[in-house]
């Protein structure tokens, strides 16, 4: 089976990689904890 999506995760960040129709690539990252800026 072809792998069409993948996830890289660390303690505070998750990155999702997905191959969509028409060979469109989507990279999305979400912070589970947004670092304080100040």
């Amino acid at each position, binding site marked *: 089976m*072809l*792998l*069409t*999506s*993948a996830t*890289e995760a*660390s303690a505070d960040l998750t*990155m999702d*990689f*997905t*191959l*969509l*129709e*028409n*060979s*469109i*690539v*989507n*990279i*999305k*990252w*979400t*912070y589970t904890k*947004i*670092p*304080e*800026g*100040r």
Partner: protein
Amino acid sequence: MPTAIIDVDRTPFEGKALSDFVVINKDAKTGAVTVSVLDTNQNVIYSLNGFQLMQDFNHIDATVHADNGNFKGIMGIFEQVASDLFLKDGIYSLWARDEADPAQTGKLPSSNMYGTHPMFMARGKDGADGTQAWIGGFYNLANAQDWRVMNDASSGEVNLKTYSAGGLGDLFFFTGVDPNEIVTKYHTIVGTPVLTPQWALGWNQCRWGYNSTA
């Protein structure tokens, strides 16, 4: 971007392998992740070098790999009046206003543009059979943002740094044989214009040009 406003279909396409289009390198010591996006010719078209996200600040550092045989760089981002749509070195703000004859200088403070679209395209490296390879990228980000463009014609690389007042990372990449195919695929993500209803084609009263109601 709330999915209630733009509901992107993120169903994985089962016909091809993700690994043919994305290469993820993770540094064993630091854990740092670098990402490369490939076209159908296995040429790298985009490198995600790094990113930062803090309260009210979102920075993405990337490299677009444009054709170095006939280098022009990237175009897109906003509507402007120009004889050359490819972007020179500079900083460009995505900040729209009802602006007549908008034109960018690449210098801060940046000019208002008539419309802005966080989407770019470039000509990549041609295929072995001479077929043109075009690439496109869309940053699904609605916050105020500046795009810093640095061209290197000798390597064919465009360093693209974006600075935004917020938002998360949600990037889309397209490949095609010409700009039309890039735009067509872009519209599969952001949607197509709505067909105007017949009743809207009747009398319209616009206030533009009126100084008073007298």
